[in-house]
C-alpha cells in the first residue's frame, strides 16, 4: 500500500515530463535563441539591401566565409536576414496569440459563467468568425491598410485568434462550475472574479497552453502568408518577405536554393515543434491520450 503510493507520485510520472512536449519546447527555444543570440555574434546590418555582394552561393557551394549562407540578388546576407526574421515572426505570433487569448479568457468566462443571452451572443460571434475564411479576409484587409510594422499586423491577426480560446474557456468554465470544489467555493463565499481566476483558471492551464501554442503557430502562418503575398510590412526582413522576394526574383528558376529554402526550412521546424508542443499538452491535459505508462 505505502509502496504503491510512493510509486504513484514518482517524479517520472509527472505529466509535464511528456516527451513530445519537451522535444517541441526545446526546438522552439533553440530557434528563438538562434534569433536572439545571433545578433550578438553576427552583424545584422548585413540584412539591409546592398550591404553585401550579390548572388553569392553558400560556403559549401563555393561561396565565401564572410557570407556562410550566401547572399541574394539585392545584396543581403542570408544569415543576417534569418537572424532578424525569426524573432520578428515570433513576435507577431506572440502578440496575436496573447491578445486573442486575453479576449478569449474574458469572453469565454463571461459566456460560461453567466450563460443565457450573454452566452448566446458570444457563442454566435465566435462561431461566425470561425467560419470566415481567415486568409481571404486578411488579404482584403491588408490591401486596404498599408501595414507599417509587425505590431499592427499582429493586431489584425488577433481579430481571428480569439474564437478558439473563447470556445475552450467557455466549455471549461461550463464543466468546472459543476465540480464539487467550485460549488464549495461558491458556497463558502468566493466572488465571481476569485472563482474565475483563483479557482478555475489554474485548472484549465493545460488547455489554455495548448490553445495558445496553436494560436502562435496559426498567427505565424497567417503573417507569413500575407508577407509571402507581398502584403506585409516590407522594411524589416521576415520569413515571409524573404520568400516573397525570392519568388519575385525567380530564385526558384535561377536555382538559388539557398535563397528560398532556408526560410521554408525554419518555418517547417517551427510548425513541427509547435505541433509537438500542442499534442504534448493535449496528452498532459487528457491522461487518456497518454497511453499505458510502462
Amino acid at each position, binding site marked *: 500500500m505505502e509502496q504503491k503510493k510512493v510509486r504513484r*507520485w514518482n517524479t517520472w510520472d509527472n505529466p509535464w515530463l511528456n516527451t513530445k512536449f519537451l522535444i517541441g519546447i526545446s526546438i522552439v527555444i533553440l530557434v528563438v535563441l538562434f534569433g536572439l543570440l545571433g545578433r550578438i555574434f553576427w552583424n545584422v546590418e548585413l540584412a539591409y539591401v546592398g550591404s553585401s555582394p550579390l548572388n553569392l552561393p553558400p560556403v559549401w557551394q563555393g561561396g565565401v566565409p564572410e557570407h556562410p549562407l550566401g547572399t541574394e540578388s539585392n545584396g543581403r546576407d542570408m544569415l543576417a536576414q534569418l537572424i532578424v526574421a525569426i524573432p520578428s515572426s515570433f513576435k507577431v505570433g506572440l502578440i496575436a496569440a496573447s491578445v486573442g487569448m486575453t479576449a478569449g479568457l474574458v469572453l469565454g468566462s463571461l459566456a460560461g459563467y453567466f450563460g443565457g443571452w450573454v452566452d448566446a451572443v458570444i457563442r454566435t460571434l465566435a462561431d461566425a468568425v470561425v467560419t470566415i475564411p481567415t486568409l481571404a479576409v486578411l488579404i482584403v484587409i491588408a490591401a486596404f491598410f498599408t501595414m507599417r510594422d509587425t505590431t499592427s499586423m499582429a493586431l489584425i491577426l488577433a481579430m481571428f485568434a480569439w474564437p478558439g480560446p473563447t470556445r475552450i474557456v467557455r466549455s471549461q468554465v461550463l464543466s468546472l462550475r459543476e465540480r464539487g*470544489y467550485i460549488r464549495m467555493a*461558491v458556497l*463558502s463565499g*468566493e*466572488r465571481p472574479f476569485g472563482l474565475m481566476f483563483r479557482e478555475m483558471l489554474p*485548472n484549465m492551464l493545460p488547455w489554455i497552453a495548448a490553445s495558445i501554442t496553436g494560436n502562435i503557430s496559426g498567427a505565424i502562418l497567417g503573417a507569413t502568408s500575407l508577407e509571402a503575398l507581398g502584403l506585409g510590412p516590407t522594411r524589416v526582413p521576415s520569413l515571409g518577405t524573404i520568400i516573397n522576394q525570392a519568388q519575385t526574383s525567380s530564385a526558384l528558376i535561377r536555382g538559388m536554393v539557398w535563397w528560398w529554402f532556408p526560410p521554408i526550412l525554419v518555418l517547417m521546424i517551427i510548425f513541427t515543434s509547435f505541433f509537438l508542443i500542442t499534442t504534448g499538452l493535449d496528452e498532459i491535459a487528457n491522461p487518456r491520450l497518454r497511453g499505458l505508462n510502462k
Partner: protein
Amino acid sequence: MSTINTENLILDAPTDAKKVLEVENLRVQYDTPRGAVRAADDVSFYLKEKEILGLVGESGCGKTTTAMAILQMVQSPGRIVGGQIRINGRNIVGIPESELRKYRWTELSLIPQGAMNSLNPVIKIKEQMADAIRAHENIKKKDLKPRILKLFNDVGLPERVYNMYPHELSGGMKQRVCIAMSIVLNPSVIIADEPTSALDVVVQRVVAQTILEVKERLGVSMIMIGHDMGLQAQMVDRVAVMYAGRLVEIGPVMKMFKNPTHPYTQLLIEAIPSIKEKKPLKVTEGLTHDLRNTPEGCIYQFRCEHVEDSCCNEPPRMYQVGIDHFVSCRHAAERARSMELLGGYHG
C-alpha cells in the same frame, strides 16, 4: 377513534427547544427534457438547537437535493418551485445572492457528499481554508495561520497538512479538511451529506466520532444525511425518512428503531444486518415509480404490503403519533395511536 387528532401539521408540534431551521412544504424539481423530476415534494421538518437530525432513505430519494435546496444551491436544471426555508425565523428562499452571503457558511455550512471532489486540486489546503475566512472577514495575515491550525487541531489533522495539496491526503484526511472547512466561520447549522459513505469502515467510525466531538464543542445543530441506519442510530437524536422525494416519517431515534410506524421505515430497520440472527433479505414487490410521474395518493402504494384502495386516491398528510414524531400514513398513524391507547407504545 375520534380522540385521534390526525390533523396536526408538523410545524405545530409541541417543542421546548428553539427551532434554528425550519423547512416548510419545500418542493424542488429538475426540469428535464422528458418531464420534471420531483426530487423533493412537500418536504417539511424543523431542526432544533443543538440537535442532530438524521436524514435517511435509499439513493435517489432526494436527500442531497433537499440539502442543496436548504443552501439555495440546487444544481441546474433543478429549481425550488415552492415552500419556505427559515433560518432563525427568516425565510431565505428567493432572496438575492448578496443577502444569501450573510447566511451561507456563516450560519449554514456543508460537509459535502464526496470529499474527494470537494477540494480544488491545484490549491493548497491552507489557501482553501484562508479563502473561506477572507471571503467573510477582514482578518490580519498573522492571525490566519494560528486560526487554521486551531481548526486542524479541532478535527484531528496534523499540522503538516497546512502546506499540502489535496492529492497528498488520504480519503479520511480530506474528509477532515472538509469538516474543518465547514466550521471555519462557526455556523449554527451544519449539513453533512453522507460524510462517511466513501470511507472504509474503520475510518468511517473515526470520522463520525470527530463530527460528533466538533458538534458538541461548537454546540451546532446538524442534519446528518446517510443511508447507514446503524451509524445513524448511534449518532442522531431524531431521524427523518425520505422516500421518492417525500418525507414519510420523522421522529426520535429510539422510538423509530423500536417501533417504526411507517411500512417503509419498518423495511429499512428490518434490513439492518445483524450477526446474531441470519434473516433472509426482504425484497418488496413493485419498483419505485418514475419520479417524473408521481401517482395519485400515497407515494409508497406500489411497495406497501398494507395498501388499501383509499391509499391510491388521497395523498396522506403528516399525522402526529407522539412528541416530535410524525408519519405520513393514515393507517400507520391509526395503528400507532391505538397501540398507544392500549398502553403498548411507550419507548
